[in-house]
């Protein structure tokens, strides 16, 4: 019987060998895929087993880590002034993942960044609890608060930038949500999540970065820049050859009218046309510049850039390529397919204010380790030369005129040089819904500068009253005032 016994021995050995191969397969080959599986809770459990780092605004943390000692998770994320800062922090939820800074800065906040490796190794050796690093934002809490207060009861967004550096000073979206309310896993959090994600007013939409709106008349700033750069207009105070109404080229007598049918647009100077927001003048100028050159100009100001991060990803603003002349005329006054994020329009104001140099907007000033040593610091970089200093100066003059004498008088701040441009963009099929009210502006005082863009979606105000002047400009004014301290 010994021969079969030997064979049985070999068989048993093969069984054990097969198990060993399988163990190597699962624990070696498949391990990383298994660890990355969305249903594997270990990653999340580990992430909440120690305090995350803080997101800091104006020297104070706007995030907290609650020691909850739940069955699965030791800590839970919580937020100070959650709804106001939600468009900046995003959320970090045990059940629903994360977004915005909580997501893109996770390596620092979780402490897993390779640059923190040495510190972590040291902590492991000394038995110290692992802790995430901090992210210091560029946000100015006063500016943020002013924007937040201004948008209460409305729907929209406001963005403020320091034109000389690109540092984002305010990033407001309203309605908003409290990220604390979705940070956990229990049924309350799930109910909140469900409510927020199914709310038709989309409180979780980051309107400042992730929503695009037709920019309307505010886009005329870019058209003006293109016309001045190409020499179609050389003197902003010389009359232009502009009919009223302007018949769209290549159409069967389709007119491009002015919004309120104002008088004064016919053959108006560029300066006056911007103050009155004449569609006819800028539609015609856009056509004269041509679709290719208009596209180029829009791109210099940041349009059609789908890869921009601040470091949070920003939805690309759109200016169509390959348009006919009628479409170009429409697009040159911010209609047709032209769409912009509030951040994009703030960049337009910032570039003009900064003498034509567009600085890359950024939200994170510094990354720090848990012991407050600086790991990285953002240094301002130029995104593009949007226009020449000479053209920028002319645009500044015209924008100041808008605030002094035109549609932007509600943004005046005594003793401060303020330039602005209003916009009222059509919304809905045949303009049947309340339009979007825009205000794009900048202010300079005592060596400090700020550029702001505000958009207000269909507000309850009756249709006739909706204009950038009444709804958006006062918010921009308050934000600029908050920053300049006037």
């Amino acid at each position, binding site marked *: 019987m010994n021969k079969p*016994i030997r064979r049985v021995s070999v068989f048993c050995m093969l069984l*054990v060998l097969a*198990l060993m191969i399988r*163990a*190597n397969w699962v624990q070696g080959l498949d391990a990383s895929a298994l660890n990355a599986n969305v*249903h594997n809770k270990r990653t999340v459990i580990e992430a909440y087993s120690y305090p995350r780092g803080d997101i800091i605004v104006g020297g104070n943390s706007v995030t907290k880590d609650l020691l909850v000692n739940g*069955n*699965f998770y030791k800590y839970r994320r919580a937020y100070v002034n959650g709804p106001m800062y939600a468009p900046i922090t995003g959320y970090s939820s045990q059940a629903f993942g994360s977004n915005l800074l909580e997501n893109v800065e996770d390596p620092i906040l979780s402490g897993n960044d390779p640059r923190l490796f040495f510190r972590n190794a040291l902590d492991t050796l000394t038995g110290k609890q692992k802790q995430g690093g901090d992210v210091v934002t560029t946000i100015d809490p006063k500016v943020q608060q002013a924007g937040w207060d201004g948008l209460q009861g409305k729907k929209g967004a406001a963005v403020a930038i320091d034109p000389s550096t690109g540092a984002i000073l305010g990033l407001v979206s309203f309605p908003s949500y409290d990220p604390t309310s979705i940070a956990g896993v229990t049924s309350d959090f799930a109910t909140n999540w469900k409510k927020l994600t199914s709310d038709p007013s989309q409180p979780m939409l980051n309107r400042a970065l992730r929503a695009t709106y037709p920019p309307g008349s505010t886009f005329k700033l870019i058209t003006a820049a293109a016309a001045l750069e190409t020499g179609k207009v050389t003197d902003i105070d010389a009359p232009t050859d502009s009919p009223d109404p302007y018949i769209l080229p290549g159409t069967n007598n389709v007119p491009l009218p002015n919004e309120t049918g104002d008088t004064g647009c016919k053959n108006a100077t560029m300066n006056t046309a911007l103050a009155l927001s004449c569609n006819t003048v800028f539609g015609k100028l856009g056509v004269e510049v041509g679709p290719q050159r208009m596209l180029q100009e829009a791109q210099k100001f940041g349009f059609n850039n789908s890869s921009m991060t601040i470091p949070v990803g920003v939805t690309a603003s759109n200016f169509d390529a390959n348009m006919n002349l009628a479409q170009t005329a429409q697009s040159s006054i911010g209609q047709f397919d032209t769409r912009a994020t509030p951040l994009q329009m703030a960049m337009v104001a910032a570039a003009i204010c900064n003498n034509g140099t567009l600085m890359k907007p950024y939200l994170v000033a510094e990354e720090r380790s848990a012991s407050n040593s600086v790991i990285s610091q953002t240094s301002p970089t130029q995104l593009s030369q949007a226009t020449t200093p000479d053209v920028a100066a002319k645009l500044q003059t015209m924008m100041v005129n808008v605030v002094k004498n035109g549609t932007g008088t509600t943004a005046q701040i005594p003793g401060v040089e303020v330039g602005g441009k209003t916009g009222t963009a059509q919304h809905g099929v045949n303009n049947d819904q309340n339009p979007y009210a825009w205000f794009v502006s900048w202010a300079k005082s005592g060596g400090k500068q700020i550029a702001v863009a505000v958009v207000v979606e269909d507000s309850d105000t009756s249709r006739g009253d909706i204009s950038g002047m009444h709804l958006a400009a006062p918010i921009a004014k308050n934000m600029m005032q908050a920053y300049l301290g006037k």
Partner: protein
Amino acid sequence: MTTVESRAVACAPQGPAPVRRNTELSLLVFAALVPVLAYAETGLAMDGRLPAGMLGYGLGLGSFVLLAHLSVRRFAPHADPLMLPIAALLNGLGLVFIWRLDKARELHPNYPAAQNQLLWSGLGIALFIVVMARLKDYRRLQRYTYLSGFAALVLLAVPAFFPVRAGDFGARIWIHLDGFSIQPGEFVKILLPVFFSGFLMVKRDALALASRRLLGLYLPRGRDLGPIVVVWTLSLLILVFETDLGTSVLFFGIFVVMLYVATERTSWVLFGVLMAGLGFWAVAHTEGHVRGRIDEWLHPLAAAPGAGVGQIGQALFALGSGGALGTGLGQGHSWLIGFAAKSDFILGTIGEETGVTGVIAVLVLYGLLAERGLRTALAARDPFGKLLAVGLSAAFALQVFIVAGGVTGAIPLTGMTLPFVAQGGSSVITNWALVAVLLKISDLARRPAPGEPLQPGTQP
């Protein structure tokens, strides 16, 4: 004992096989020390201090093991020196892992399993000592051939008549008495080899010789097919009525292996595998529970909406997160496996906290134990002893393969305990008795025959 050993060495060329009891003792020191250190490490990792029960645990385990060793010295002095230390090491490590899972709050309903398991281990070792002392000659078991067969049948059939509990996950393999539950299928692991050994001893010649040759294979005669058909039918009945794939495969596997060893006919193996394949294929297509198990094996990471992946998926996650070296004792999250994490799925915890290194170490221990049993079968001088040792060893190896293969997703999962390591009173008791019987066979096999000392070359 030292004197015996030195004498054995002194007359080496002609002398009897070394008794190796001191080897066993030193290995046992190691086998008791490793779990105690693991216990300490787990306590330090989870609570930051040495566990309070460490001294008691160490002394308890140490004294159990020492008693077992003394009984071997007294009643089976020539027995194999490796089996007892391996069993002790596995049992000790199992206790540490169960204790570690007791500390996971998420598994609280099952708390505290480690204390019970320690008690069962003590009972198991007591049974081991009883077998050592009372079973003077294992060949006496031959007398109980048919009684064993009958008892095995009864034990296999009993759970089918008891109500299934909600926590049993569909398999009828338990008998629930108030307070605790018994898994009678475990005891069958010893009874069946006894029965098959006795039965095949008598029938092997008829089964082996009276056959027709066809295409190079010896085909059994129709009437000799009787036993295999009966066993095959029974195993399918277990599968259908108790929905227990594991016991069914184990039951049939032991029989085919022993039939093969008894008759030395490969055709029986082919026949057996063919019949098993056919039977399971048919059952898998009709029996929802078995089909569900197969589906879960094929798609372990498929998640039910809102519920996450099933247990095999969780076990794979645990193993995967262990990687090469593991998270360290007490620092994994294998409690995510949930139900049966301490019993059938305990390999998941081993894999997560000690990595593939720990899993392979444990598999090596199982492989060694099975191979020492098969070595014993080679050395045994009587056919009954050979068959019994093969049957017990194969049962052990098959069980390890079935449960470890199931947990690692290599084969469909069936409810079975990992011998010595997993939580389960019936299992740990049976396995200690199994090792005791193997040691008794080994003792007789290695004992110098009267007037005929073993040659060193043939020493097992």
